[in-house]
């Protein structure tokens, strides 16, 4: 048996023993997802157990180094982990912006002290993070952001407003882009970390068309941030931000997802699938979904060994979010009037309709599809004047 086969056997056995049966069902709603953090309430004992068991082994962040809370898996081992998780339909033990976004940025730009401190907290699900990027006047043109940190010697005093801050009302800490030099557009932004319980921080949920409020407005009124809570160099936060955006886009693209959940034809059939034209569209969709799954796998394989184009996450984000919007359009069509139910128990509180509406943000958040196409044109295709 090769080392990797032995590793697969070991993972399979561990999952068999440790993954609670309840955690092998697809998540049905947002509260099935374990986000961790100081304010988090576990939905049931199985969810808590699953997180704790994985965290103890470093499996919440399998490919992070062991000193930072990971399991130190190689790319090939991490792929086996994903495959074995998918094989039994296991839910991720922990979902978090710390894992998907801040973690990779800290691994690249953080000091050793920051890595040990923050990454371990993230890996154990102790601190839930939110992202302070967009502002009311700075959406696609993010670099024009105005939130300002005034230098007060050993700390900054931050004033300003962020918007579309995902789960700001539930988060413990924020990673935040703050202007620290008003005279320099790109090289005048710093990447700061601070506690959402700091005096002067307030949040206000934004009601979306889905009837839910995953996003907030976040206000900073003379918030004191110690200087050691900067990641990377002063005024070079845009480099950190861009690097992190790559990971955010990768996350939103859904790369590495489960084929059984990505395709929808077989699922739609359960409601009866009598319309041949709808069936044909579902088949065309499943072709695209399975092809995109392969793309996700290829992208993750390549990025781990430096073979992927550095701008490839933009392509993944574009293709993955457009696909997801199409997926939920078709699921609505397949569901018929039952998919329109807004609050009944049978409909899971209108989960079909609300999810459909929520997916419309996919091609806006983290960089719009149009911005993604601009980036592909410029950085990958090298088209002129883009």
């Amino acid at each position: 048996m090769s080392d990797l086969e032995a590793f697969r056997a070991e993972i399979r056995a561990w999952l068999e023993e440790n993954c609670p049966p309840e955690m092998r069902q697809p998540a049905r709603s947002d509260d099935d997802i374990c986000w961790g953090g100081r304010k988090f309430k576990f939905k049931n004992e199985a969810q808590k157990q699953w997180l704790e068991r994985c965290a103890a082994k470093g499996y919440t962040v399998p490919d992070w180094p062991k000193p930072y809370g990971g399991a130190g898996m190689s790319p090939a081992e991490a792929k086996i982990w994903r495959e074995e998780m998918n094989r039994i339909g296991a839910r991720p033990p922990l979902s978090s912006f710390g894992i998907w976004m801040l973690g990779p940025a800290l691994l690249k730009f953080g000091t050793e002290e920051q890595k040990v401190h923050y990454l371990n907290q993230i890996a154990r699900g102790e601190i839930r993070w939110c992202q302070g990027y967009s502002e009311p006047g700075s959406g696609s043109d993010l670099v024009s952001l105005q939130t300002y940190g005034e230098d007060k010697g050993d700390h900054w005093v931050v004033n300003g407003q962020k918007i579309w801050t995902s789960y700001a009302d539930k988060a413990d800490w924020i990673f935040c882009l703050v202007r620290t030099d008003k005279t320099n557009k790109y090289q005048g932004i710093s990447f700061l970390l601070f506690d959402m319980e700091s005096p002067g921080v307030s949040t206000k949920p934004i009601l979306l068309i889905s009837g839910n409020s995953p996003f907030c407005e976040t206000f900073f009124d003379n918030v004191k941030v110690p200087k050691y809570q900067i990641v990377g160099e002063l005024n070079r936060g845009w480099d950190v931000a861009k690097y992190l955006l790559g990971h955010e886009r990768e996350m939103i693209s859904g790369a590495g997802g489960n084929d059984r959940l990505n395709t929808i034809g077989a699922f739609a059939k359960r409601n009866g699938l009598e319309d041949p034209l709808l069936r044909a569209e579902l088949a065309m969709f499943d072709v695209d979904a399975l092809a995109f799954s392969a793309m996700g796998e290829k992208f993750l394989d390549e990025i781990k060994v430096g073979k992927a184009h550095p701008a490839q996450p933009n392509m993944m984000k574009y293709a993955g979010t457009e696909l997801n919007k199409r997926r939920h359009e078709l699921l609505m069509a397949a569901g018929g009037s039952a998919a329109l139910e807004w609050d009944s128990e049978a409909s899971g509180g209108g989960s079909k309709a609300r999810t459909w509406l929520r997916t419309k943000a996919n091609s806006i958040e983290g960089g719009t599809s149009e911005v993604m196409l601009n980036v592909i044109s410029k950085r990958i295709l090298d088209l002129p004047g883009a």
Partner: protein
Amino acid sequence: MPLYHTEDQAMLADTARQFMSDEGTIAKQLRHWRDKQCKDGFGHALWKQFAELGFTGILVAEADGGLGMGHVEAGIVLEEIGRNLTPSPFLTSSVMAATALGGGSADLRGRYLPGLLAGDSVFAVAIDEGPKHRPERIATRAERAGNGFRITGGKAFVVHGGSADMLVVAARTAGADDDNDGITLFAVPKDAAGLSQDAVRLVDSSMATHVKLDGVQVDADAVIGEVDAGRELLNRVLNAGRVGAAAESVGVAGGAFDMTTTYLKQRKQFGQLIGEFQALQHRAAHLYSELEIARASVIKAQQLLDAGSDKAELMVSVAKAKAGKAASLAVKEGVQMHGGIGMTDEYDIGLYMKRDRALSEFMGDMYYHAERVAQLSGY
């Protein structure tokens, strides 16, 4: 296994790319033979060169003198063939017929493989009986007669049939036309009595034939694999052809795309490069995305086939459909973005459009394969 080429595969890709861009170019091959109205539609000298490089034996077992490689490697050559629109019998002979013969007796392999490996022989595969790919239905019949079989029926649009030394013919030895079982594959020599072919030139300047089998008598040793139980081997041949055609499509799409983005960076209108227009940039970027996804689906399918996975069948259909969709978009956008010159025969982009059309149809178009994806997925 990671979804990228190993070092050995990357070296093969370099060799194939270099060779095809030197010797397999549109000017030297496709246009040359087209303008001569060549009855084969390809050059035999180039086919010999394929053999010298070992390409003809990629899917032939080492024990039979081949390289014993897999569909990933065959696909590497096919992608370069696609990129240069290089006409050759590689897909029908070295991919499909070689796969069929790989399931045949030592006697058959000894009779046919040396010629293939040397680039002296050309083989064709005769499966479909109408203008659409419908291998589920095989009406051509082979009845036991004398020491072997007598085959009667017709095959349509057999690519390279006219230049083939041997045709792999799928015939029915039992059951009704639509039955899954009762299929047998035969190796029928081109000069077999009762075999006649009418040649047709297709839109991409490739040559195909309509094959008439009028009581063609073959010996028992012409049977490839087992009598009545040939469906499995036929499916292997189909999978090889489909994933191979998908790889070639990715090459066609890549060639058209490169040509088009190059043009966007050269052509000026309104005092600026047309590649500066966002309307064109976004379409080019979308096309790039579709091409990357198609490429990923193809290598995934190749790897699953090579690994003998039970998921291969589904992914092969995904790859054929996705590569077809992406390539179709690439050639249509290519012609449109080239403007007027894209419509001229002198300019190559139109040749990509023609080849894509023929390749999409070959071994099932995106509609056929999307339908298969639905069926294999249980709806």
